[in-house]
């Protein structure tokens, strides 16, 4: 097989050299890709500048209470976004808690355990989940998953485990929990596909070496596959988290839209993206800049999460 690939490569190279295209193509290519790269930076910078500029009046008038107060009453000119920040983080955490083990399980199953004929269709189906629009997830959550599946679980949790603050009742249906579960389903395909690719990239030689040392399949996965893939898996999880933090419509439909900070995940809450979606249309004046401000804070949180992920990955690669 290796020989054939070499032949193909050599053929392609010869054809290119015959045409003499390389001399002109290289600089043109450099310029085109350069423009593409720059465009991303410019768009990003433009967005940051414009949104921050729009939000400055509210940052100035509210000060730190914009981030640390939960009092959001546009009619009185009070904008405290803490409940939204809290809701975004809680729903994303619930989503990660459910999605990470599941995705990792699916990815390991598909790369290490599943019979060959299952791998293709299952991987394909998981990828297909990523193509479903988020509004469909949201509506499906409200009309199908919530009444049929989540509500009974939530009620059971609140009745049996209600003495634990995070499961305190009454279970309201639309809640952090409902939003978190649907978010989990939404981020599973991303994390799964990335993890699958990462696990596939673990050299067969190392796996065989583990087997040769007498390792069982589980020991091989623990000893040879996971340590190799750790950095990549964290990257995959962070991409999933990024989507969960920014998801708008599905959360707006499911979270219950109540600006409150409560320990119980069975109670309604709010999220940053959802409040923007719900209120922007009819907002005027300070309210608009406050909502844009929420967007700026969300952007900030996303950056912090990404940087943290990078640092984590670097540390791991070094050690």
């Amino acid at each position, binding site marked *: 097989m290796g020989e054939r690939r070499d032949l193909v490569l050599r053929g392609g190279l010869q054809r290119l050299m015959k045409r003499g295209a390389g001399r002109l193509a290289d600089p043109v290519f450099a310029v085109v890709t350069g423009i593409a790269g720059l465009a991303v930076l410019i768009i990003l910078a433009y967005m940051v500048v414009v949104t921050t500029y729009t939000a400055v009046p509210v940052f100035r008038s509210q000060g730190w209470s914009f981030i640390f107060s939960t009092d959001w009453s546009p009619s009185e000119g009070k904008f405290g976004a803490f409940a939204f920040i809290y809701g975004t983080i809680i729903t994303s955490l619930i989503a990660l808690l459910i999605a990470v083990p599941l995705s990792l399980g699916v990815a390991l199953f598909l790369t290490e355990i599943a019979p060959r004929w299952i791998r293709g269709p299952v991987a*394909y189906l998981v990828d297909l989940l990523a193509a479903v629009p988020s509004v469909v997830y949201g509506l499906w959550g409200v009309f199908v998953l919530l009444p049929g599946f989540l509500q009974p679980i939530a009620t059971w949790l609140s009745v049996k485990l209600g003495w634990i603050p995070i499961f305190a009742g009454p279970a309201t249906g639309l809640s952090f929990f409902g939003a978190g579960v649907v978010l989990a389903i939404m981020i599973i395909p991303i994390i799964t596909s990335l993890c699958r690719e990462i696990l596939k990239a673990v050299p067969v030689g190392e796996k065989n070496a583990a087997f040769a040392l007498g390792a069982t399949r589980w020991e091989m996965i623990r000893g040879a596959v996971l340590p190799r893939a750790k950095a990549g898996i964290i990257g995959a999880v962070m991409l999933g988290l990024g989507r969960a933090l920014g998801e708008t419509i599905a959360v707006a439909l499911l979270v219950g839209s109540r600006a409150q900070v409560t320990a119980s995940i069975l109670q309604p809450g709010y999220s940053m993206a959802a409040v923007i979606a719900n209120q922007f*249309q009819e907002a005027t004046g300070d309210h608009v800049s406050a909502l844009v401000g929420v967007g700026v804070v969300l952007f900030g949180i996303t950056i912090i999460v990404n940087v943290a992920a990078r640092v984590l990955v670097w540390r791991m690669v070094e050690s």
Partner: protein
Amino acid sequence: MINSNQYKSNRYKDGVLLVCRRALVLVVVLAVTVGVFGLLTSRSPAGRGGSLDIADSSSSLQAIGSSSSPRTGLNGVGASFPQPLYLEWIGAFRDLNQGVKINYQGMGSGGGIQQLTQLTVDFGASDAPMNDEEMAAAEQAAGSRVLHIPAVFGAVVVSYNVEGLEDLKLDPDALAGIFLGDITRWDDVEIAVLNPGVALPDQAIQVAHRSDASGTTSIFTTYLSRISSRWDDTVGKGKEVKWPVGVGGQGNDGVSAVIMQQPGTLGYVELSYALESGLPVVALKNKAGNFVMPSLESTLAAGRGVDFPDDLRFDLSDAIAADAYPIVGATWILAYEKMKDPVKAEALKAFLNWALENGAEIAEELHYAPLPEGLKSRALEQVNSIH
């Protein structure tokens, strides 16, 4: 480990099998998707336009955009609550008058007022009348008076889900008490007094409200502000307010889903939606002291005996007529008396004349209450002053 020769010989077969399997999976998934989509669209009530509006508006926009077209194009933006009705009216009017194309986008009342003031549209629409400041800004921008032309009345109904409970009556105090969070249980004395002989369960009340900014919320909170000074002081009225209690669902769909799924829930939805979906509704005590069920007739009755001001910026909340349903609001078309383009002025006049004179039947089909005669003639006076 798989032997590489064996692997090669199997690869072709595997590939073909894989492709077949993938195709099969794709077909199944597509079929399911189409089925679900069909279900979703068939169960969505008349209150939502969906993709139809988008197609409609984009094609009319094109017609207006091309200056070579001899047709007249009118552009309107505003309230989403009457959007289904306006689209029907526009469609019927276009069938009768080939020359006039009208585009309406229900992006919200606030947007309607804003775009009218910025002169980017030919008419606006709003579920609440413009306030004096907004009027002044618009009139200064256009150099013309702004007209409020009422189109139809709409009502907001209170719906609930309590097992075995069919006829629930509430008065203003009890309703405000529930939404303020003072009354938290179904067997509260204040509710029991209004429903003698009815077995009320010992169950917590969960309140459901709209989470998105909406005219429905505006009509509902305007009513609560009218009947409860405590509500007026602590919460106030608006398209979205800071609710003391409850969970927020998105749209009428979202609120009714909460009501239907959660026993013990009480919430509000717009009349047309409640009539379409058959939710149980509360009979409310009106100003005259009668318990009135929401219906087109009782909505229409709210306009009886109201002293309409000259500029037609009126309020139908808690109306005085004996058979009036109390939570009623109007929706208005906003236009300038003096329009820059006389051709457009004539077109708008023709459309509004037609809609007010002949649109009642369509309105009733869609569960909007058409204007009573007296108010209709006053609205037509406003329309005919456009030039």
